């Protein structure tokens, strides 16, 4: 091991990359004109390419594997630092919130598809079930508003139960059709249903926790911080929760059982793994996470309509998962950031963004089907995980 590698396998190996990441994202998010945005994207791409060539990525991977808590703390610090940096900037805080909500939903999808191998083409629909549940609960009932979050998840999970029978009985393309049909059905249903506001959608009352109104900005001395800051903090909390749940699930014996179910149903059944039980668990847990994220996202948006939860959005979630590398939850985080931020910042391509984005995903599936950060096989020996 060279001297440099020895230094960077310590805490510095996590802290320095985290600092670079923070500096770059701070610059990228504040960049206004298109040339500097393009330049910063190109410099990032060049830097990453160099990092892969020079083996820095492997050093970072090692460092993260050894000091995982430190790396997680670094990521949370980056998020908090960005929030503090943009405390008065509605737009960037909203982007950060969107990233965290989407990441939580995709973590749910990851439990389904990445671990248990249950296809779900209606992730955005469950995201929407959570959102509409929150909207109806906050405006129609006197329940404590915070309860709308877990209830949004729970209703999404319950809605998923309707699909359980066909999802369990079918496999492959037939299973894909079931969830796809549900996604289309859900969108049409919202569009024509008067009760859910029809195509115009419905307003979502702001969250209040213990008298703290989330739609009001925070007064701090002379400055007034954006109200999105509160939602971002809550979203960060939810994301951390979802992240640690999925991580722990992956490393537990349950994760092992889910992996077995995904890899080979017949073989795992022969070893006494209850396939239905684990598929149901994964599907329900995933829908719960998506619904939870959707409820909070709806509150942040303050107004939701069927157009937020279309089949195309389900595809967006799926392609985030595929882009990051199916099953790798750190890949999910990276991919969400890329998919949400880049089109938003690139106003030049605004009109063409769906075209460019779908063409890019298409090219990636053809040329690098494993995603940016493919999941590594389980390590049973060597570095402690």
């Amino acid at each position: 091991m060279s001297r440099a590698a020895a230094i960077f396998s310590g805490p510095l190996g996590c802290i320095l990359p985290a600092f670079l990441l923070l500096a770059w994202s701070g610059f990228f998010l504040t960049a206004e004109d298109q040339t500097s945005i393009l330049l910063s994207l190109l410099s990032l791409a060049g830097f990453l390419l160099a990092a892969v060539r020079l083996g820095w990525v492997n050093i970072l991977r090692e460092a993260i594997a050894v000091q995982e808590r430190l790396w997680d703390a670094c990521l949370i610090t980056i998020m908090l630092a960005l929030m503090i940096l943009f405390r008065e900037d509605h737009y960037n805080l909203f982007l950060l919130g969107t990233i965290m909500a989407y990441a939580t939903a995709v973590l749910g999808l990851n439990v389904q598809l990445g671990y248990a191998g249950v296809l779900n083409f209606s992730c955005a629909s469950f995201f929407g079930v959570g959102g509409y549940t929150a909207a109806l609960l906050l405006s129609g009932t006197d329940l404590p508003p915070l309860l709308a979050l877990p209830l949004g998840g729970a209703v999404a999970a319950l809605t998923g139960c309707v699909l359980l029978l066909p999802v369990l009985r079918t496999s492959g393309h037939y299973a894909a059709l079931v969830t796809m049909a549900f996604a289309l059905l859900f969108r049409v249903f919202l569009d024509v249903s008067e009760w859910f506001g029809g195509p115009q959608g419905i307003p979502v009352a702001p969250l209040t926790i213990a008298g703290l109104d989330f739609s009001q900005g925070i007064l701090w001395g002379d400055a007034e911080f954006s109200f999105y800051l509160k939602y971002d903090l809550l979203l960060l909390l939810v994301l951390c929760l979802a992240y640690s749940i999925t991580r722990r699930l992956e490393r537990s014996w349950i994760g092992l059982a889910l992996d077995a179910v995904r890899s080979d149903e017949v073989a795992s059944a022969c070893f006494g793994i209850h396939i239905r039980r684990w598929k149901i668990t994964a599907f329900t847990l995933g829908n719960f996470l998506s619904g939870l994220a959707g409820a909070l996202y709806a509150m942040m948006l303050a107004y939701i309509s069927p157009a937020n939860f279309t089949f195309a959005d389900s595809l967006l979630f799926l392609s985030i998962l595929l882009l990051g590398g199916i099953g790798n939850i750190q890949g999910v985080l990276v991919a969400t950031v890329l998919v949400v931020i880049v089109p938003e910042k690139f106003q030049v391509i605004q009109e063409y963004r769906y075209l460019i984005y779908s063409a890019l995903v298409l090219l990636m599936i053809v040329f690098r089907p494993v995603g940016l950060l493919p999941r590594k096989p389980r390590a049973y020996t060597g570095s402690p995980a």
Partner: protein
Amino acid sequence: MDLLLQYCLNGLMLGMMYALVAVGFTLFFGVLDVIVFSHGDTVMIGSFAGLATYWWLHSTYPGLPAGWAVLLVLLAAAATVALLGIIVADAMIVPLRKGPALNTLLATMMLGTVLRESIRLFFPDGSNPQTFPALLPGWSWRGGNLILRFDNLVLFCGGALIIFLVHMIINRTRLGMAIRAVAQDEEAARIMGVNFRFVVLATFALGSAVAAFAGVMNGMYYSEINFSVGLLLGAIGFSAAVIGGLGNIYGAILGGFIFAFLQTIGAVAIPFASAYKDVFAFGAVILIMAWRPTGLIAEPSSQRV
């Protein structure tokens, strides 16, 4: 009574359209075991290609008889779309088929978006619905409240003829025998000297040409085409092929008519909200899948361990 009959006639037209789309899905699944989800957008491209051809014909040969115009529009649309199908198959679907099925499905969904967005952005005024010309004479026969339109009758018979032709190609020609052989066992077919690549590309050309007919039919039936129609048509065609049982052409035709029947039932039987007809139809599809997990005409399959 007349109203019910009218609904039935409309349902039959829709069913024929869906069956034509579903036949493509099931053909592709037969030879390559893949779902080409962009097939719905292929249909849409077919109708736009037909429209462009009509515009060109209309400006260059204004006095062309209607029969020739229809034929040329159909041929041009079929040729364009068949070429597109061949390119897509050769560049994307054949290389991807060794990977997980999900990747192909997702890749073709993305391709669908690419096609849709290309039409929206690059076709003249593509983001708005386009008026499709009435190429056939608008005679109609009226009995009570029942209206039987001549052009619809022609379209229906044309669709039936196309399906019959596909049936003949699959069952009575050497190419059809090769397609069936590849569908049954790719390796054995190769050993027997079947040119695999040619068969796959020919299948894609055939399926796409049928889709082009469905696209022109769609345009003439609604006298309007829209870039965004591909997603729903793709989902419907996929549903129809799956309800019938993937890989089975007759199943796909049956599935197409069943889906149209479900939509019609949804529109007739739910009087308070005919807008729910798609909810009803897709809900019924989910139920059918729960009841018969591999479609009504089940795929003969056994799992080897």
